[in-house]
C-alpha cells in the first residue's frame, strides 16, 4: 500500500498520451510477489515461455547470420515492454541478449531485480526500469534491435500510441514481437469465463474482453505505422497438461512478428528504396 502511494505521488500516469492504464496497474500491483511461483497464479505465463522463447529465438536466428554457440542471441538488444516480474526477460538474457525490461508497476520491477540478482550473468545482461514506454522514448530513439510486448497490448489504454512508440525506439529493420488475445465470442467464453472464473488459470479480473485485440486490427495499426507484418500464429493453452502449443486459428491467443521498415524514421521521402521488401506507406511515413 505504501509503495502504491509513493508511486502515485512520484509519477503522474494519467497523461492523455500515455498508453498506461491506471486501473490495469492496480490489478498487477496486488500480485507482484507471485510472479516466480511456477505453480501459482502466473503458471500459464511460465509455461508460455516454452513456445514464445523458441519463437523469438528462431525468428531472430533466421534473420541473422552470426551464430554464437551457447548464446544464440548474443549481441542483440531487446526491450521487454510490460516485463512484469521478468519471466520472459530472464530466458532471453540467458540466451545471450542484452535485455531492458520496463514495467509501470514498481513492485514488479523490484521483484524482477531481486530475482535476477543472484545470477551474476543475468544481473549484468538485464536492466529493469520502472517506467512506461513513452517515458523512455526520448532517451532511447532507435536503440533496440528487438521489442517484445508479450501479453501487454490487451492492457494498454491507447494501442496506436503504443505502436508508434515501439517504432520510435526500434532500430530500422528491427523486430517487434507481440503476443495477445483475440476479441471473439470464443475468447470471451474460454478466455474470461473459463480461464478466469471457472478454472482459475488466470487471476480473476486480469482481462477485460473489451480490450482484446483482433489480429486484423493489430495488423492494420502495425502496417499503418511503418511495420511489415511477417508472421501471425495462433496459440492454444491446454489446461490439463498446463502447456501451450501452436494452432492455425487465431480465435483465441496469437503471436505476431513484425519488422520495422528500413527507411529512417524522420524521413518524409517515399522514393528511397528500402533493403527489405517492406512497402512504405507515404501517408504515414515519418512518425
Amino acid at each position, binding site marked *: 500500500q505504501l509503495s502504491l502511494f509513493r508511486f502515485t505521488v512520484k509519477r503522474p500516469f494519467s497523461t492523455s498520451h500515455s498508453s498506461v492504464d491506471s486501473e490495469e496497474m492496480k490489478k498487477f500491483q496486488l500480485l507482484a*510477489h507471485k510472479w*516466480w*511461483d*511456477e*505453480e*501459482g497464479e502466473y503458471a500459464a505465463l511460465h*509455461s508460455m*515461455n*516454452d513456445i514464445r*522463447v*523458441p519463437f523469438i*529465438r528462431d525468428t531472430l536466428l533466421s534473420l541473422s547470420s552470426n551464430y*554464437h*554457440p*551457447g*548464446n*544464440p542471441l548474443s549481441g542483440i538488444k531487446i526491450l521487454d515492454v510490460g516485463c512484469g516480474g521478468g519471466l520472459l526477460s*530472464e*530466458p*532471453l*538474457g*540467458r*540466451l*545471450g541478449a542484452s535485455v531492458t525490461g520496463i514495467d509501470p508497476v514498481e513492485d514488479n520491477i523490484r521483484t524482477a531485480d*531481486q*530475482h535476477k*540478482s*543472484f*545470477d*551474476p550473468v543475468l544481473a549484468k545482461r538485464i536492466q529493469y526500469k520502472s517506467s512506461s514506454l513513452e517515458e523512455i522514448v526520448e532517451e532511447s530513439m532507435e536503440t533496440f534491435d528487438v521489442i517484445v510486448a508479450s501479453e501487454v497490448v490487451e492492457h494498454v489504454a491507447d494501442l496506436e500510441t503504443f505502436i508508434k512508440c515501439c517504432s520510435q525506439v526500434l532500430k530500422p529493420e528491427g523486430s517487434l514481437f507481440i503476443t495477445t488475445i483475440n476479441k471473439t465470442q470464443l475468447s470471451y467464453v474460454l478466455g474470461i469465463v473459463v480461464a478466469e472464473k*471457472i*478454472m*482459475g*488459470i488466470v487471476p480473476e479480473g486480469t482481462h477485460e474482453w473489451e480490450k482484446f485485440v483482433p489480429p486484423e486490427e493489430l495488423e492494420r495499426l502495425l502496417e499503418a505505422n511503418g511495420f511489415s507484418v511477417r508472421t501471425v500464429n495462433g496459440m492454444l493453452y491446454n*489446461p*490439463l497438461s*498446463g502447456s501451450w502449443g501452436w494452432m492455425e486459428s487465431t480465435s483465441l491467443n496469437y503471436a505476431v512478428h513484425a519488422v520495422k521498415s528500413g527507411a529512417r524514421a524522420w524521413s518524409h521521402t517515399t522514393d528511397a528504396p528500402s533493403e527489405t521488401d517492406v512497402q512504405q506507406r507515404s501517408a504515414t511515413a515519418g512518425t
Partner: protein
Amino acid sequence: SSAAMAALRGRAVLAPLGARLRAGPRAPLRSAASAPPLYDVVVSGGGMVGSAMAAVLGHDIHFHDKKIALLEAGPRKEYDHMPDSYSNRVSSISPGSATLLSSCGAWDHVCSLRLKPFRRMQVWDACSEAMIVFEKDDLDDMGYIVENDVIMSALTKQLDAVADRVEVFYRSRAVGYTWPLPSRSCDTSPWVQVELADGRRLQTKLLIGADGHNSVVRKEAEIQNIEHQYDQSAVVATLHLSEATDNNVAWQRFLPTGPIALLPLSDTASSLVWSTSHDHASELLAMDEESFVDSINSAFWSNINHSDFIDTAGAMFRSAISLLKPSGTAVRQLPPSVAKVDPESRAMFPLGMGHATEYVRHRVALIGDAAHRVHPLAGQGVNLGFGDIACLAHHLSAAAFNGSDLGSLKHLLKFETERQRHNVSLIAATDVLKRLYSTTLAPLVLLRTWGLQATNALPPIKVRI
C-alpha cells in the same frame, strides 16, 4: 475459494509437486561479496556414470558457455598406458551406450585402447537342458566387454578436452548439501549449496547425484529408497582359456546358488562374474588357483543338478516346438574351458537391489546407481546409467537452448518419467529372474525351463529382450 480453484484446475498431476518442493535446511543468507562460486551444473561422483554425464554436457553445443563442476572423492588416475594384464572389473556395454560414449568422443579412445565385441549370448539352466541364445540377425555386435579402467581413461581424456567448461575437483568429497526454498520471497539464495570436506563451498543451479548406491545426495534430499540386500556376493576374476578361440560369445549359466558368467576379453582371456552365496564366495576366494579353476569348469559343464524328470519334460517340449516351428531351437555351443586364473585378480563384492522412489527434486537429479541398483545377471547396470545420461542430457540441452532455469522441475520431471518407465520394468524383471533361478524345486524349474525354451523359440520376445 482459491482451494476450490486449485481443485478444479485439473492439474492433479502436479499435486505431488508440493511434497517435492519441501526439502531440508534453508539456504543461508549470502551477500554478493562472500558468495561461493556459482556453477550451472555440479555432478557429484566421478565414476563411469558421473564422468560420462559431465563429459556429455561439456560437449553439448548449448552448454558452450556454461560452467560445470565434477566432484570426485578419489585422486586423479593417470591412464597413460594400459597394463598388459586385464583388470577384473569389466562391464558389458550395449550398442546404445556405445553411441552415447561416441557422442562425447570417448568411444574412439575405448576402441584404440582395448575392448571385445561379442556377437552372441548363450544363457542356460543348470537344472535342465533349456537354453536361450541371443544374437543379432544382421551379424552386428550385440555388445562389448570393456574394462572399467578403459572407459574411465577415455572419459578422462574427453573431460580434459573441455576443461574450459568442465572443472574436475579431485580428492573432493561433498559432505553437506543445503537446499533452496522453491519460491523465494526473501533474501535467501535460490541455489543448492555444496560443502566439501576441506571446507570449500560451491553453489549450483542443478545438482546431479551420480554418487553410487549409497548416494549421499539421495539421502540428504530425503528421497526414499527401496532396497534389498541379496544373500549373494559376486566373485570376479580374470581367466585364461585352455585354448585360443574366436571368443565372441558371452556365457551365462544359472546355477541354484546363482548365475555364473564368462565374458570374453580376448581370444585367450575371459572375465568371470560368479554370483553366489556369501560363504561360497569367500571359499572361492580362499581356495588355491587350481581348485578355483576346477570349480569354474565344473559349474559350466557339470550336469549334477539335472533330474531325469526335468530332462524328459524338457526334451518333450523341445520336440513339440520343433514340430510347430522347425527353426525354433538353436545350435548349442559349448562354453570354453578355463586353464588358469590371473593371480591377483580374484575379488568379491556384495550384491543388492535398489530403486529410488523419486529421481528428481527441485534443482536435483539422480542418475546411475544412485537412482537404481540391479543384480549383474542381466549385464545392465552401467547401461541403465548411460541411458539415464542420454535422457537427462537431451532434456537439459533443450532447456539450455530455451533459456530455461536448468534446475526447474518441469524438464526434470520429464526425465524422471521417461527413465522410471524404462528402468522399473527392467529392474523388476531382473529381480524376478534372480529369484526364479535360485531354486531346484521341480515345478519352478519346469516352469522356467519351458519358459526359456519358449522364449528362445519366439522371435518377438527375444527381440524385446
